[in-house]
């Protein structure tokens, strides 16, 4: 049944085995890295971060149509798979998780998983939920005015939609038909607060109508469904037809490690690839081994990397050459 749905989608989207394998590889890489990061945290090696498990299809599917380096991404802390998919190196993520001096994301200035990459146009994330939705609208405004052809893609949880920022962002984006895509990764809970204590509507997407934009609900177990939805949203944005609100329903997976959960997006695609013969069990095993080896090498390098240097703490408060701060003047 699930496999049949994937099959139908594959045909509609005209995807080749290589496309499917690429998606699988991206999701699997995120899953393995996510598990490794959780281990590090459990061992007390690292000071924070968030679990991506179950969110892989939502993220990998949504970034598929993105033109890396042109389109902007405004992620939140769960978006590990999205980061890997657009090209953030595993090394960077370990350095970030371990707060090393050479972490290109924040060099230990932010807690882990507040993503950032200028080259990839991943906008530096704060620790505050929902604020980035307004930034996404503003970036889309700039893109529209500059005729740059860029799209802003932003992610957030269903809890974040209770903030006023969300309302203000969607209102403005809808009003001016801005090229922005709002993706809600709805996992049904915000810390301890279930969606039923957060909002009186069944679906975040039900709110899209209030902002004059389409709201689409899509199954986060099914990467091809997400991909199809994202392609439509990108096409709309690029055609000047305005924003889309995508609500991806994240499957609540059973306890970690139980890869046999049929709603698991990684496991689902794996079963499909195996069933079609696009991937053999041996190829799967060797892919896992390859990803794990690369991961361990990156981790080893990160563990060797230096801790942040207190001498650098004043860097980048203001533009170089800007008026000095009190402390700089006083040398204090």
């Amino acid at each position, binding site marked *: 049944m699930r496999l049949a749905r994937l099959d139908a989608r594959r045909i509609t989207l005209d995807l080749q085995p290589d496309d499917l394998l690429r998606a699988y590889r991206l999701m699997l890489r995120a899953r393995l890295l996510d598990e490794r990061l959780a281990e590090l945290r459990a061992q007390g090696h690292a*000071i*924070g971060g968030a679990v991506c498990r179950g969110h892989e299809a939502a993220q990998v599917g949504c970034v598929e149509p993105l033109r890396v380096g042109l389109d902007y991404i405004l992620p939140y802390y769960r978006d590990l798979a999205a980061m890997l998919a657009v090209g953030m190196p595993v090394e960077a993520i370990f350095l970030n998780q371990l*707060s090393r001096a050479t972490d290109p994301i*924040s060099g*230990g*200035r*932010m*807690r882990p998983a*507040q993503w950032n990459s200028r080259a990839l146009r991943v906008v530096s994330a*704060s*620790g*505050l*939920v*929902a604020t980035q939705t307004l930034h996404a609208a503003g970036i889309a405004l700039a893109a529209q005015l500059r005729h740059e052809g860029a799209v802003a893609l932003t992610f957030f949880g269903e*809890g*974040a939609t*209770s*903030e*006023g920022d969300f309302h203000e962002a969607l209102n403005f984006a809808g009003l001016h038909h801005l090229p922005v895509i709002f993706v809600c990764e709805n996992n049904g809970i*915000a*810390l*301890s*607060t279930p969606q039923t*204590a*957060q*909002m009186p509507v069944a679906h975040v997407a039900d709110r899209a109508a209030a902002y004059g934009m389409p709201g689409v609900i899509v199954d986060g177990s099914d990467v091809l469904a997400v991909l199809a939805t994202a392609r439509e949203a990108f096409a709309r944005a690029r055609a000047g037809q305005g924003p889309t609100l995508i609500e991806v329903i994240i499957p609540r997976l059973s306890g970690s490690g139980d890869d046999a959960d049929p709603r698991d997006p990684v496991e689902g695609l794996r079963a499909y690839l195996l069933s079609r013969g696009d991937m053999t069990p041996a190829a799967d095993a060797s892919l896992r081994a390859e990803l794990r080896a690369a991961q361990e090498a990156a981790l080893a390098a990160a563990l060797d990397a230096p*801790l*942040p*240097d*207190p001498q*650098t*703490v*004043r860097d980048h*408060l203001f533009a170089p050459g800007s008026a000095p*701060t*009190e*402390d700089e003047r006083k040398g*204090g």
Partner: protein
Amino acid sequence: MAEQTMIQALRAGLRDEMARDERVVLLGEDIGVAGGIFSATQGLRREFGAARVWDMPLSENGIVGISVGAALGGLRPVAEIQFADYLFAALGQIANEAAKLRYRSRGAWTCPIVVRAPYGGGGGGPDHTQSVEAFFAHIPGLKVVIPATPADIKGLIKAAIRDDDPVIFLEPKRLYHEPVGAVPDDDYIVPLGVATVRRAGTAASVITYGAMVVESLAAADLLADDGIAIEVVDVRTLQPLDFATIAASVHKTNRAIVFHEDVRFGGFGAELAAFISEVCFADLAGPVLRIGALSLPTPASPELENAVLPNAQTLITAVRHLTAQ
């Protein structure tokens, strides 16, 4: 008397007031079933029911605005904001509504709310460690409280809840779980607006509050070994401020150091130093020194955070410098 941590004493104070006055309701993110991310409200929903402890939607401005409304409707809301940094988003409701309701209506309407939030250093990075007291202390119509001991947090939260005006209650989160301290079991109140001398001394007055009280006492121990006896004044309530206790201490020691973990430039320490410099002008044997964080966001990694925030050692250096003059 029980030996308790600050978080335990806080919980006891909240529980007391909820039992005493059924108008007291708690509103916040994850405070009900989960008992709060720092466990301040653990068990209270079970004890008092869901109608007294509300798991609110994720919106700090909303939590404060709804609390203001609930107070207008006759309740005594205590709002928890998960980190003080999130209070910036609620400042519209706090500064323009809560703080001004009584004044603008000439007493027809009042706003007895408490807004509680953990604040300060201890590893959260630029937007999870900010000290925000200077903002609130500057807004007429608010009271601002910062406890530094288990006994005080109990006594002050109870006084804050009973106060008929809005109180911003800032909790130094790195002290939540240690040290422990003796906390009176009974209905213990610490009145707002009264500072306390935590340690008597003669060499210099250290005017401080929050987590820096603990650092000051540690510094006092070390300096005592060298025969330097500093006096440590815990301000406790920033607004209204207990000018008299502070001035009396400086009058005695003739030297003052103002010490907080907030950014120094424009911090509440500026008010303290300006006030002392003016009122104690004739007493002062040297300038009033100020210790605070560098004018930077506070980075998350311990190496960098320590380079930005002050500590006992920063104070010791300043005391030696001042007393050598």
